[in-house]
Structures are given as C-alpha cells and as structure tokens.
C-alpha cells in the first residue's frame, strides 16, 4: 500500500512534468493502457499519417547542404563584385591611339578586371620580351665562352706554348746518379 502511494506520487510527478502528453491527466493516471495504433483518428486533411520506412537521407542532405554553403561562401561575393564592376565601371571602348601618346601596357585590354590584373600583378609585355632577350644573350655569351675555352685548350695542348698543360720537370739536383756514375756497377 505504501508502495502503491509511492508509485502514484511518482506518476503524478511525471505527469506534472509533461502534462500535454496523452494519458497524463488525473483521470487515467494509474489505470492507463497502451494506445491502440490500429484504430487511429483519420481526419480529412492530408490523408492518413504514414510512417514511411526508408534509408536515411541525412548524409546526402548534409553533403548537399555543405556543398552549397562552401560554394556560395566565395561565390556570392565574387558574383556581387563582378556584377558591380561590369555595371559601374564597364568595359573599355576601342579608340585610335592619339599622336605622341604611349599607352601604358594595361591600356591595351578591354575588360576592367583584366586591366587591373595587368596593372597590379603582371609585368608589361615589353619588359617580358626584354627579360627573355637578356636571358638569351646571357646564355649565348656563356656558350661562346665555353667554345672559346675548348678551342684554347686544344691549341695549348697541341702547341704547348701556353700556360696550360705544362708538366713540371724534375729537379736535377734530386737525381741520384750513383748507380750509373762508374762503368763497372
């Protein structure tokens, strides 16, 4: 009997915690039974509520959510910037080069973003051309010097009158002539 009252007070406490759940009102607190699931109230709304058993699409939806998030993270600012540039700055128009005016190297491009990239990051094509010519000149001089060196080696080895390929002769004072100094050795 005491246990019964403990159970009843525990069930009342649980009912107070979630009063809206069915079966939690005072009338059927201890004598409630499990709800029947085969006789459900059918109201003419969206039809009978079905519990559709299908495999989890959580991972697929999470992937698509993350994909859209990370593409739009840089996509939206870029789209806004590019639209703003195209609307407010606009593409350049082709005009005849005026007399005695040397255009800067970025003024040969049409789109404003291309002009900005050419102005900020790239060297002018004239400078690139000169850099290439300088590299070729250096390599040509190196090749010419190597050929000259080979020719000088050949000449000096052959004629023997240059500073290279000189073999030091022995010091005559170091030669011991004692084995051959008398004819009877």
């Amino acid at each position: 009997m005491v246990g019964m009252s403990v159970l009843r007070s525990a069930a009342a406490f649980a009912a107070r915690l979630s009063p809206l759940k069915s079966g939690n009102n005072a009338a059927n607190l201890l004598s409630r039974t499990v709800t029947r699931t085969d006789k459900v109230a059918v109201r003419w709304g969206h039809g009978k509520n079905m519990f559709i058993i299908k495999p989890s699409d959580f991972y697929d939806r999470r992937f698509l959510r993350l994909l859209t998030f990370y593409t739009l993270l840089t996509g939206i600012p870029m789209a806004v910037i590019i639209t703003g540039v195209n609307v407010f700055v606009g593409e350049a128009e082709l005009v005849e080069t005026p007399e005695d005016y040397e255009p800067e190297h970025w003024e040969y491009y049409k789109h404003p973003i291309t002009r900005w990239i050419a102005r900020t990051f790239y060297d002018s094509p004239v400078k690139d051309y000169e850099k290439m010519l300088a590299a070729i000149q250096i390599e040509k001089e190196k090749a010419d010097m190597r050929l000259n060196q080979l020719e000088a080696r050949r000449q000096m080895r052959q004629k023997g009158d240059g500073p290279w390929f000189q073999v030091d002769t022995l010091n005559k004072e170091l030669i011991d002539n004692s084995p051959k100094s008398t004819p009877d050795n």
Partner: protein
Amino acid sequence: MPADHDKDAYPEPPRQTPVAEKQTALPNPAVILSQLFYYSVDVPVTTFRGVIDSFRDNNKPVYYHQKYRRVPDLTECQEGEYTCYYEAEMQWRRDFKVDQEIVKVVQERLRACQQREGNSYQQNCAKEMQQFSETTKNYQLRYGDLGAYASARKCLMKQKERMIAAQAQSA
C-alpha cells in the same frame, strides 16, 4: 556590352523587299504584333540598358590597338645570333596569328553570303567563293603541314622546299 562592329566595313547588299501597298481597311496583324513586341520587350530592355549605362557616363575607360614595329626577318639574321632569332620568331608568330584571323574573316564573309542568298548562293556568291578558295590555298601552301610545334625556321624550310620544287618544275 561592347559596341557592335563597324557596319560600313563589310556592307550587306541593299534590301530588296518590295514596299507594301495597303488595299484594305482591316488592321494588319503583323504590324500589331510587332508593335506589341516593341512596347512589351524592346522599350523596357532599352530603358534598362540606358539606366545601367548612365552609371558609366562620367568615366569611360578606353583601350588602344597595339602596333608592333617590324624587326629583321629570319633571313636577315647572322648565324648564331640567338637574340635576332628570337625577335624574328616572335614576329613570325604574330604574323601567323594575323593570317589565321584573315582566313577566319574571309570564311565569315562566305558564310554570311551563303546565308543571305539562300538557295541561289552558288551563282551570287562567286566573288566570295573565289576569294575564299584563293586565301585558303595560299594559307595551306605557307602554313599548311607545319604541325603544332610550328616555328619560323620550319616555315622558312617549307618555303625553301617550295622554291626548289618550283625551280625543278620550271627547269
């Protein structure tokens, strides 16, 4: 959006549609439809373009056409002057691009002519066809089978072979 190309450079032939003489009092449905299209599509689009263009009226950037100086050719370079070779090679590459664009322009003219004339293109486009065949023949002779790694040297060697063949044929 950039301006359209210069229409006087490649003029289209004058239109030959006859002037329509109205003989009835009924309204012409084609005129009604064209006016409907004009007011519903053309006017809003043009005003939108005008609004957008008004933002750029103050500072319009301009761009110029780059002109390159002529440098000595590959035939005028001394043996072993690699800087001269490089400049001649770059000039040959620029001329190659220009020739490719020339062929494209002539092709485009022939295509436009065929589209205009419709089924009678073989008679009416004879001038364009002759120009096209001549241009492509010369292009094929000069740059024909040089391949992907074409260079000024290979083109010069091809020219030498052509001249040898021409001399052998005439001799």
